[in-house]
């Protein structure tokens, strides 16, 4: 019988080995997936017991903090946003029941103090209680406040300001705003509000027709592909046929023998429509791709909360050079072009930075509970969108827009400003109440033109006015605030 006893023991060893195997699977190999299950309340309960790190503006204003609640021993923390609606976008919210959104969601691991596997093992051994790190953003409190106040005066819309040489996002304002402090009580009501969509982060999620601001992209494609030089001229009559449909300039004005600067300064539709067709689909879409169209902008917000700009079908599909598109109308920002203010700010920032597009980032540095800076934003390049020469030539043309063209309201005394207006007609837009004279008003630009410190895109929905009337003044106010702070 002894042989069988030994075999039986061997079998028991195998059985216990299976137990170790399953325990390892649940506790280590599958642990991360299990922690993310909706049915698992443990991570939320634990996070509630950790003081989440603060979020601050670049100038030290506290955007978000955690305050303790309850008696010692069963203390929990709840999120507070002292500035209310001002930073509801893009910071988002963080509550146990409602979850995390936007910046709070993207940087969750840092804010709750989740470190590397090694670091957390050390913590377990030393028994250190987890504590979140603070994050300082690039947001300028004064400029953010001015941007939101201007928007609230002008209408629903968005403002994005980026430092061109670093990609630092200094302003990201969205109207209609919401107060993140009220999320636990009001999230359902806010979600149901389809007319004002306060939870939509318009800078990154508002998809609008870009109108004439897109002419900067078309011009870049013309210069980069060698189709034109700054001295090339194109005859641009008041009306031409594009894809069999007439296309006109404002007031049907003729521009014969116009060069790039003249055409951009006066926003000549027929000039750019012809250029777009000359450049061709491949070169135009290639230029768009280099500016970031067609993919999710590389900003520190959750991917599902940053929308892709481009020629979009109604179902959200983004078209490419091989699809049937009306190139002449794409060239002037019409057709099915849908872009976010963030994307247009990236266009302005790339031109301002000698054609080099930096990755836009909201965060600046991480400070651990002991006050040490543990991480710092290292600005990185997204793409070389144009050559430095092309960028310089575009800058000259864009200066003309503000100096003597369609964007004079963006001018700042004593500072050279480069920019481009846009006014896309959106008749019958339901979110505007269906009026026939509604426009999407735009201004994108940067200043100072000779040494750009700030690039801005401002966009206002549902206005009967033009880009120069409502968007350019917002650009001016926000740019002044940011340049003053330098």
């Amino acid at each position: 019988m002894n042989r069988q006893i030994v075999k039986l023991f061997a079998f028991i060893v195998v059985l216990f080995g299976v137990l170790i195997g399953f325990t390892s699977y649940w506790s280590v190999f599958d642990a991360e997936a299990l922690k993310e299950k909706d049915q698992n309340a443990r991570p939320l309960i634990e996070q509630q017991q950790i003081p989440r790190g603060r979020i601050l503006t670049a100038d030290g204003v506290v955007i978000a903090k955690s305050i303790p609640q309850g008696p010692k021993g069963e203390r929990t923390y709840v999120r507070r946003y002292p500035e209310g609606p001002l930073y509801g976008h893009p910071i988002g919210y963080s509550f146990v029941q409602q979850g995390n959104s936007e910046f709070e969601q993207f940087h969750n691991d840092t804010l709750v103090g989740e470190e590397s596997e090694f670091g957390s093992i050390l913590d377990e051994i030393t028994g250190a209680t987890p504590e979140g790190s603070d994050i300082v953003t690039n947001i300028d409190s004064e400029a953010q406040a001015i941007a939101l106040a201007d928007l609230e005066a002008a209408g629903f819309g968005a403002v994005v300001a980026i430092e061109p040489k670093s990609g630092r996002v200094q302003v990201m304002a969205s109207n209609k705003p919401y107060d993140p402090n009220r999320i636990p009580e009001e999230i359902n009501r806010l979600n149901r509000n389809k007319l004002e969509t306060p939870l939509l982060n318009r800078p990154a999620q508002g998809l609008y027709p870009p109108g004439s601001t897109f002419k900067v992209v078309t011009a870049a494609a013309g210069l980069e592909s060698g189709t034109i030089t700054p001295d090339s001229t194109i005859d641009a009559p008041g009306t031409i046929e594009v894809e069999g449909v007439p296309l006109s300039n404002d007031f049907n004005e003729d521009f014969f023998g116009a060069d790039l600067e003249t055409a951009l300064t006066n926003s000549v539709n027929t000039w750019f429509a012809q250029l777009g067709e000359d450049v061709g689909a491949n070169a135009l879409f290639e230029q768009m791709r280099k500016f970031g169209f067609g993919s999710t902008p590389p900003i520190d917000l959750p991917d599902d909360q940053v929308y892709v700009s481009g020629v979009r079908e109604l179902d959200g599909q983004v078209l490419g050079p091989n699809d049937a598109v009306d190139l002449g109308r794409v060239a002037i920002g019409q057709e099915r072009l849908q872009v976010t203010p963030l994307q247009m700010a990236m266009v302005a920032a790339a031109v301002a930075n000698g054609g080099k597009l930096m990755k836009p980032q909201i965060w600046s540095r991480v400070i651990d509970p002991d006050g040490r800076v543990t991480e710092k934003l290292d600005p990185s390049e997204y793409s070389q969108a144009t050559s430095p020469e092309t960028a310089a030539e575009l800058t000259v043309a864009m200066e003309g827009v503000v100096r003597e063209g369609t964007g004079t309201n963006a001018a700042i005394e004593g500072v050279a400003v480069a920019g481009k207006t846009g006014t896309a007609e959106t008749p019958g837009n339901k979110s505007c109440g269906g009026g026939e004279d509604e426009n999407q008003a735009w201004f994108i630009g940067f200043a100072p033109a000779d040494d750009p410190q700030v690039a801005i895109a401002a966009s206002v929905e549902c206005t009967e006015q033009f880009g120069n009337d409502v968007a350019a003044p917002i650009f001016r106010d926000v740019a002044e605030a940011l340049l003053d702070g330098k």
Partner: protein
Amino acid sequence: MTSARNRELVALVPVALLLTAGFAAVFAQEEAQLGDASLIYGAYFFAICIATHIYLRIRLPNADPYLFPLVALLTAFGLVMIYRIDDGLARDQANWFVLGLILFALTIQFLRDYEVLERYRYTIAGVGLLLLLAPRLPGIGQQVNGAYLGVKIGPLAFQPAEFSKIAIVIFLASYLRENREVLIVGARRVLGVTLPPLKHFGPMLVVWGASMFMLVFIRDLGSSLMFFAAFLALLYVATGRFSFVVIGMAMFFVGAWFIATTVPHVHDRVEIWLDPYVDAPGSGYQILQSIFAQADGGLFGKGFGQALIEIPDGGGTLLPAAQTDLIYSLIVNEVGLFGACGVVLIYLLIAARGFKIALLASDGFSKLLATGLTAVFSIQAFVIIGGVTRVIPLTGVTLPFISYGGSSIVANFVLLALLLLISDRARREATAPAGRDLAFGRA
């Protein structure tokens, strides 16, 4: 032959220290200051262990030196975990530990000649079956979570299955000792499969029938599996026919499958096992929480006293039946994969020592009894740990010596007493004729 007992004594010291340190860790977590209570508890525990050790020194000087310290280690670990859940429960458990040791001593006192058990094997089998069925008897039976496992007579409540497993192993060991020869010799090969002789196969069918009956009657897949697996283990060891085991397993699974599809409670348990997410807040809650708790433990665990058991603000429990069914999940949560491996290793060491006793024993009954007791003990640990780790459906079997529960502690100490009785005789016989204490004593 004092060397064995000396080793036992030395092994008990770290156990007592571990208990003291464990209590200290829980105190430190809960009160943020260290009193001398953990030292007092440690001293009590050590004193009780020493008393038992001295008793063993007198009564069973040759018995295996490692089994008692290993069991004491499990008990100490269980006490700390239960104390961490509820200090009242831990006091009960400590009392049962003492009661268990008293029964342990009584068993050793009165069953020195344990062959006497063979003479009463049918009585013992009858009592064992009666105990199993008791929870279905009107007036005293109790249903817990759909299974009939408990009995309550006046103020006394217990789980009879814990005791009946010992009775049934005694019966099987005795029956197989007597019939193993005919089972082997009478076997015929049919279509390449060795079948046991029909005449002697009857009692085997009875055991299978009893297991199936249990499944229907007390509706507990876990104890049914435990009994039947112990039976197959003994059958295999007695006859050496692996084909018997295969046939037996096939019969069990066919029967279990049939019952699982017809008896609602058993059916639910199997469904939840296959996909707990189907009813996550309801019937799947316990197994899901078990797994989530383990996921939270990771490699090293969160530390003694750190596990989340209750949802804050009276939101309910995060670990249903943490002190009994899910205590292994709590262990993984607090001491991590490494701690859990340690616990499983202790069970494995106990199994190793138990089978070692069976190897050393000279007569058939002792061999089979030691094998059966060790097998049923190991399989019980496997059934509950396998249940909470989703290897098999989760059932209400206790984790021996660790789970909260008087029946479990007391019955398992009786089981340990029987093992030590067999061990004492086997080692005495193995060494005495040759007169070479050390050479065999260490084997």
